[in-house]
């Protein structure tokens, strides 16, 4: 297997719009940016705490330092801010990756992770618990709702024949509408007093309820499901020219599709159950990353995860401090930021449309 003598002036391989060399430098930089974001975001908040006090408090829990904060102020750092920042990072990463995978599976850059009815199913579960006071964990109910909706979507798509991307999208639309209507019904029927505010927070997506439990759920899912999806996702590149081409390239099309779909559903379901239906992250971020990094999923997926995590940390920090002492649901800010970015993406792709 001797390589033929290549001409010296071989064109430099372009990976998207950035060369490989740029990527080699960019990757560790992004990781560093993520770490820095966590460390800095944790020091920001309405309570009057200096950065040093915050880091010492965290350090004291890790056995690395001593802190003289009162229990309550220590609680602000260790029980409120830190879990919230970590959950935000995990949720941002999870939603961005799910979005990228869904876009690849449906071959549609306008797909988002909620296509399979996941968010409307989760909303129904959450609203039922919030309004009827069932003594079930909110996260559990939301996740169950998400899974039921997803199964409904897949069954509906299957009943139309062989499952194809467009059938899945249509079925997802139908199921989302249905569950959305049920949710509205429950809300309309049951809302008393000011209970609607809690529901609104959930429906818009909020990280205000983050604690160490949500950190566990989000991070474990990211690790156990998200990471394999990211690594396995390079296979998605083979789908660039359609199913037949992918099959001809030796890819087990249906098994790949099911595995990735299942992984994405689990990932999205877990994130939604923890933070409500935060919009735009899964739709806009992969497109924005794609503009810079290109369409190869070997790069797109991990980069989407990193950028998604950093984005979410900062958007959530904004949600809890921009209007202090008030708090906004983070889903409002993601749309406020996401919509203009989305328009920019559409304009950019106008030539290609």
């Amino acid at each position, binding site marked *: 297997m001797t390589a033929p003598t290549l001409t010296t002036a071989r064109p430099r391989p372009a990976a998207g719009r950035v060369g490989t060399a740029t990527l080699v430098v960019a990757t560790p930089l992004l990781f560093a940016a993520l770490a820095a974001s966590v460390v800095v975001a944790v020091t920001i908040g309405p309570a009057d705490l200096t950065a040093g006090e915050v880091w010492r408090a965290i350090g004291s829990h890790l056995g690395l330092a001593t802190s003289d904060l009162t229990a309550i*102020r220590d609680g602000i750092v260790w*029980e409120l801010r830190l879990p919230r920042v970590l959950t935000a990072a995990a949720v941002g990463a999870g939603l961005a990756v799910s979005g990228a995978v869904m876009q690849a599976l449906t071959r549609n850059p306008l797909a988002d992770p909620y296509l399979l009815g996941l968010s409307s199913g989760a909303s129904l579960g959450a609203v039922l618990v919030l309004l009827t006071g069932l003594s079930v964990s909110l996260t559990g109910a939301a996740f169950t709702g998400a899974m039921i909706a997803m199964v409904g979507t897949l069954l509906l798509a299957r009943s139309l024949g062989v499952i194809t991307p467009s059938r899945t999208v249509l079925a997802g639309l139908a199921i989302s509408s249905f569950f959305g209507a049920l949710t509205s019904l429950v809300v309309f029927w049951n*809302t008393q007093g000011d*209970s*609607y*505010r*809690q529901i609104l927070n959930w429906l818009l997506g909020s990280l205000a309820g983050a604690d160490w439990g949500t950190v566990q759920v989000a991070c474990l899912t990211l690790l156990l499901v998200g990471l394999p999806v990211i690594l396995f996702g390079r296979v998605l590149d083979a789908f660039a020219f359609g199913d037949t081409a992918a099959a001809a390239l030796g890819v087990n099309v249906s098994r790949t599709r099911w595995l990735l779909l299942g992984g994405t559903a689990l990932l999205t379901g877990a994130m939604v159950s923890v933070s409500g239906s935060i919009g735009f992250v899964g739709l806009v971020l992969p497109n924005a990353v794609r503009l810079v990094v290109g369409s190869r999923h070997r790069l797109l997926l991990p980069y989407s995860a990193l950028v998604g995590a950093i984005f979410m940390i900062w958007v959530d920090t904004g949600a809890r401090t921009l209007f202090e*002492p008030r708090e906004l*649901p983070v889903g409002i800010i993601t749309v406020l930021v996401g919509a203009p970015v989305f328009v920019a993406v559409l304009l950019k792709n106008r030539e290609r449309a």
Partner: protein
Amino acid sequence: MNPIRTARPRLLAALTVATLALPLAACGAEADDDTTTETAAGYPVTVDNCGTEVTFTAPPERVVTIKSTSTELMLALGLADRIVGTAFADGPVPEPWAEEAADLEVISDQAPSHEVVLEHEPDLVFAGWESNLAADTAGERDTLAKLGVNSYVSPAACMEPEYQPEKMTFPVLFDQFREAGRILGVPDAAEELIAEQEAALAEVGKAADGTTALWWSSGEDTPFVGGTIGAPQMVLDAVGLDNVVTEDATWTSLGWEAILDADPDVLVLVDATWNSAEDKIESLESNPATRELSAVKAERYLVIPFPAGEAGVRSVSAAADLADQLDDLGLLQRQ
């Protein structure tokens, strides 16, 4: 769910002035046919209610009340026999009026529909929130007016900022009772009620100086709390509690971090069927951050039922109740 209600054009103002200029006998053209009482003194009465001009040419005899504050005000004014239906109660009617309330017809548990309200042929719909008078609930105000049905919203719940009092206080509340007495034709009963309430208010004890409090209405992740210019503040002032919330709003939503930072001495927990005080206590005590609050550690909770949290005839007794609870906690000033 209080959508902003649009203010009516001033056409009615012109009509009202014209009507007032005519001799009383000439304005007997009522849409409904209830003429059992002769035109009472003091009528016609015109009020600017949340931006809508409403004219009463006679005391309303058939009233539909929506929400507890309206129902309870009418009961307090001794007008149980004029109520043809109640709807959307926030909780059971409390003691002095509970027996009478039992006989009242309940039209609906939630906001009633237009038709259902009209079915009872009211001449007045007395609503607790502006959103009760919308197309998909009891009916829009001008639609009702065309059918000869007056509508009246508790002024404390007006949506437009120019109709909201700068700050809700008991004198403002009592003035609202006065206005209600005028339009219902029972100004004396209103004055009696006000005198009673003022006396009771004067008896209410005060918390020790500098005791801070948070009024937590609902919302577990992002608490919905009483601000500085609404009914919660009014009650807190009556018992001498300082609100840790500094925002100029009737109610507002706050992050837990801000609450932890303020560390109120006392927590006023609103007890509602959809979010009970017990639930709130449980979540406070199980959350590793909030259980460090001094009020939680010392179990300094004051409970107030939801209907008593809105400005109305229960506000004074709510204040008295809070004072009693403060006393139990040993936080009341010795008089």
